[in-house]
């Protein structure tokens, strides 16, 4: 556990890192970014908390069973979106034209619109959840293994 100044700054900074990571994930079809990049940004924020507070403090809040459920849920949503367009072919984009997420942008350079893209924003969200849970679980397990002799339940 580091000194009091580092702990206070880490408490204030985790909010901005979380908001920026979720912005990069959700606007993945308009600006550069997407699922993998946004997931890596949020996982960096969690690693900053582990370094500032010590792994035995973070272990009380982030249990491993919850992270495992989030990661499996992300993988299942990804496969479900792929199977839902099975009427034509595997991985068919079946939301183009419907008012939920499908609006066709005009050809050429244009200011972007969030309600475009079909199935792709939902797939970005699923992959982002999977990357966040996976990388946080790996770093937490390594920090617990090398510091103390406590059981990782």
């Amino acid at each position, binding site marked *: 556990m580091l000194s009091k100044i580092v702990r206070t700054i880490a408490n204030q900074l985790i909010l901005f890192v979380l908001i920026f990571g979720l912005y990069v994930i959700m606007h993945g079809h308009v600006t550069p970014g*997407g699922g993998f990049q946004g997931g890596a940004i949020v996982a960096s924020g969690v690693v900053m908390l582990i370094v500032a507070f010590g792994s035995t403090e973070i272990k009380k809040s982030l249990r491993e069973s919850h992270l495992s459920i989030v990661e499996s849920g992300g993988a299942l949503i990804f496969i479900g979106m792929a199977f839902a367009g099975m009427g034509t072919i595997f991985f068919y984009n079946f939301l183009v034209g419907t008012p939920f997420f499908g609006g066709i942008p005009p050809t050429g350079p244009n200011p972007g619109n969030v309600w*475009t893209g079909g199935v792709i924003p939902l797939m*970005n969200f699923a992959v982002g959840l999977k990357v966040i849970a996976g990388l946080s679980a790996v770093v937490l397990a390594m920090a617990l293994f090398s510091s103390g002799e406590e059981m990782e339940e």
Partner: protein
Amino acid sequence: MRQIVAWFALIIMVAVLITGALLMHPFGYPPSDMDDYMIANSQAETANNNVVAAVLFDYRGLDTLGEATVLFTAVTGVLLLLRALKKKEKNP
């Protein structure tokens, strides 16, 4: 003796790599037929402004499925290895 053979093999390998780098196409003018089709037709077919995201999730979605599987397998392997050592050390 092993050192001489290792140095010889390393120098031959680096020479082959540099020769291959000098024989590539001139930097900045790549051959592109498939990518011209994707740049021209990606806004009408996938309703997307980002061509890279459309290529990753629509035209080449099976590669992303394989990569998600590799990430899942690696995380499962790490968590499995770091748990078996604790149980073996508690019961000697």
